C-alpha cells in the first residue's frame, strides 16, 4: 500500500510538473536497462543478494516513475558479468562500485558519471594470508594459489594483479565475495587472497602481505551516451528529490558529481591491467604485462 502511494505521488507529481517533464527517458531499446552492482565491491546483503526484494522493487518503481519508461533492472553479483554488460552496451544506466566505474569510463566515452554512490570508508586493496602462513612478503608468493574477485573489481582484481606484477602463480581462483575468499583462505583453497582493508576480519588470524597505497574512490551512477544525448536532468533531479526512497545501501549522494581526478590514476591502472593477458580460473598464471589475446566477450577462465 505504501509503495502504491509512493508511485502514485510520483506519477501525480510528474503529471503536475508540466509537459516538458513528461518526456520519457529511454535507451535505444525502448526501455531503460539498469545495471545494479551496488556501491561496494565483493559484498552482498544478509539475504545473499545485493538488495532485499522489497528494496529492489521500490527502486525499480522509482526509476520507472522518474524516467516514465519501462525499466529492466538487473542486479548483478559478478563484476565480470557487469563488465561485459558495460562493454557490450547492454545497460543504459548503472549503479557501479569503484572498479566498474573506472571500467565504464574506459568505454570510449560511452558512459559519464552523474552522481556519487557509497560512503567514505578506508578502503585499501590488500593481499592477505593466514597468520600461520609461511609467506611473509610479496616475493614469497611465487608459486602460490591466489584468490581474487572476478574481473571488474578494483580492490579484488586490478590492484592485486598490478601489485603482483612479475610473479608466477600456480593457480588463480575466483569467488564472488570477500566473504567467500576469506572462507577459501581459511579452508586452504587459497594461499593468498585479495582483501579490502575496510572490511573486518572478524577475529580471524590473518596477516597483511601487502597494502596498496591508492585511496579507493567511491562508486557512481553512470549514464550511457544515448541517455546523455537526451534531456536526462529532470530524471536525475527526480532521483535527488526522492533520495529517501532509494535503498540506503546504495549511498546515493544528492547533487554530488564524482570526482574524476580521484579516478584518474586508478583508471590508468585498470587500463594497464586490462591490456595484459589475464588469468584463467584454475590455471597457472604469470603476472606479465603481455598484451591480451582474449577473444571479445571472454573473461577469466
Amino acid at each position: 500500500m505504501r509503495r502504491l502511494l509512493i508511485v502514485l505521488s510520483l506519477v501525480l507529481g510528474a503529471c503536475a510538473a508540466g509537459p516538458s517533464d513528461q518526456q520519457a527517458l529511454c535507451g535505444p531499446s525502448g526501455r531503460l536497462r539498469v545495471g545494479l552492482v551496488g556501491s561496494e565491491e565483493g559484498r552482498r546483503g544478509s539475504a545473499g543478494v545485493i538488495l532485499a526484494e522489497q528494496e529492489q522493487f521500490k527502486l525499480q518503481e522509482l526509476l520507472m516513475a522518474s524516467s516514465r519508461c519501462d525499466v529492466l533492472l538487473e542486479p548483478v553479483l559478478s563484476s565480470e558479468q557487469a563488465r561485459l554488460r558495460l562493454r557490450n552496451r547492454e545497460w543504459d544506466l548503472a549503479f557501479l562500485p569503484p572498479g566498474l566505474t573506472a571500467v565504464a569510463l574506459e568505454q570510449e566515452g560511452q558512459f559519464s558519471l552523474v552522481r556519487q554512490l557509497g560512503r567514505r570508508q578506508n578502503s585499501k586493496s590488500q593481499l592477505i594470508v593466514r597468520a600461520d602462513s609461511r609467506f611473509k612478503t610479496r616475493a614469497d608468493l611465487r608459486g602460490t594459489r591466489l584468490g581474487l574477485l572476478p574481473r571488474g573489481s578494483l580492490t579484488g582484481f586490478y590492484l592485486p594483479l598490478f601489485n603482483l606484477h612479475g610473479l608466477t602463480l600456480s593457480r588463480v581462483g575466483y569467488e564472488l565475495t570477500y566473504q567467500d575468499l576469506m572462507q577459501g583462505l581459511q579452508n586452504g583453497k587459497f594461499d593468498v587472497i585479495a582483501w579490502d582493508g575496510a572490511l573486518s576480519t572478524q577475529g580471524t588470524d590473518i596477516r597483511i602481505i601487502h597494502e596498496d597505497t591508492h585511496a579507493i574512490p567511491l562508486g557512481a551512477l553512470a549514464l550511457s551516451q544515448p541517455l546523455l544525448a537526451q534531456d536526462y536532468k529532470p530524471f536525475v533531479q527526480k532521483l535527488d528529490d526522492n533520495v529517501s526512497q532509494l535503498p540506503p545501501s546504495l549511498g546515493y549522494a544528492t547533487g554530488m558529481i564524482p570526482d574524476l581526478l580521484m579516478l584518474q590514476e586508478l583508471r590508468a591502472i585498470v587500463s594497464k591491467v586490462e591490456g595484459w593477458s589475464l588469468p584463467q580460473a584454475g590455471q597457472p598464471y604469470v603476472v606479465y604485462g603481455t598484451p591480451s589475446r582474449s577473444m571479445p566477450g571472454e573473461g577469466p577462465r
Partner: protein
Amino acid sequence: MPAVKKLFFGSGQRPLRQQLAITLAGILSLSILISILLLNILFGWQARQLIDQRAAFFMDAMLSVREYTSKKVNPILAPLNQGAGLFRPEAVPSYSAQTVAGLLKGKPEFREYSYREAAINPTNLRDKADSFETGVIEAFRRNPSLKIQSGEKSTPLGTVHYVAQPIKVGKESCLVCHSTPDRAPASQLLAYGDTGGFGWKLNEIVGTQIVTVPQAAVFMAKDRSLLLTAALLVVAFGVVGVVMNAVLDRLILRPMRDISRKADEASVTPATVNFEERERRDEIGLLARSFERMKQSLAISMQMLKDRQGKA
C-alpha cells in the same frame, strides 16, 4: 412526449418544407446515434480481438525461440558452461527469448510490447517476480489445470493487456542448473552466485511467461475509426437529407405551390388559367385534374350566373 410528436410529425403550423427538414433531421440524427452506439460495440470487440491476436502471436514467437534454444543451441553451449570460465547465458532458453523480445522492442512498432519470464526464485535477479507476477504464479500453482491467464494490468506508465502462461519444470535436465549448487556448472555459480534459482522440483510451476501488449494505442485507433465513421455518417446522412429535401421540393412542394397559385387565379378569372399539371400521371396530376374540373365547373357556374343576370 406530445411536444416531441408535434415537432416530428407537425401540426400544420409551419411550412411543409420546414416540417420535412425537421422530421428528416430528427430521423437521421437518431439513426446516426444508434449506428455509432452499435459501431462502438463492434469496434471495441474487434479491438479486443486484435489485442488478443497480437498477444498470442508474440507469445507464440517467444515460445518458438525458447524451443529453438532448448533443442539447437543448448546442446552446443551447455558443455562450455561446465567449466569455471565465462558463463554463456545464450544456452538458456529464457535468456534467448528475453533477448529476442528486447531486440524486437527496439523497433518502433514493438516499442510498447514486452515479454518477461518471471520466477519466484530465479537465477538472474532481473527475473525476480514482482507482487503482480507472484500473484499470477500462485494462481497457476493453485490450479494446475489453468493454462493461461489474461487481463489488464495497471502500471505507472498506463494500462496494458497481459497474457500469462506457466513455466513448469518439465525436464530433468533443467534441474542440473536449478536443483542444488553442487550440481550447477561452476561458471553459473561464478556469474550468479549460489543463492538464487535453486531448489526447483520436477513438474513444479516455478514462474510465468508474461506478454504485455499496448491497448491504449489500439483503443485510440478504434476511437479514431469510430469518429471518422461517425463523421462520414453525418456527411452522408446530411447529403441524403439535403437531396431528399430538394427532391421533395421539386416533386411535390413546387407543383403544389404552382397549383395553389393557379387555383387562386382561377377563383377570379378561371378562363385564363390552365392546369398543365393535369397531364401528369401521378398524384399531382390527379390534383391538377380535380382543380381543372373545379375550374371548369366554376367557369360554367359563373357563365350561368352572367346569363341569368342578362335575362333579368
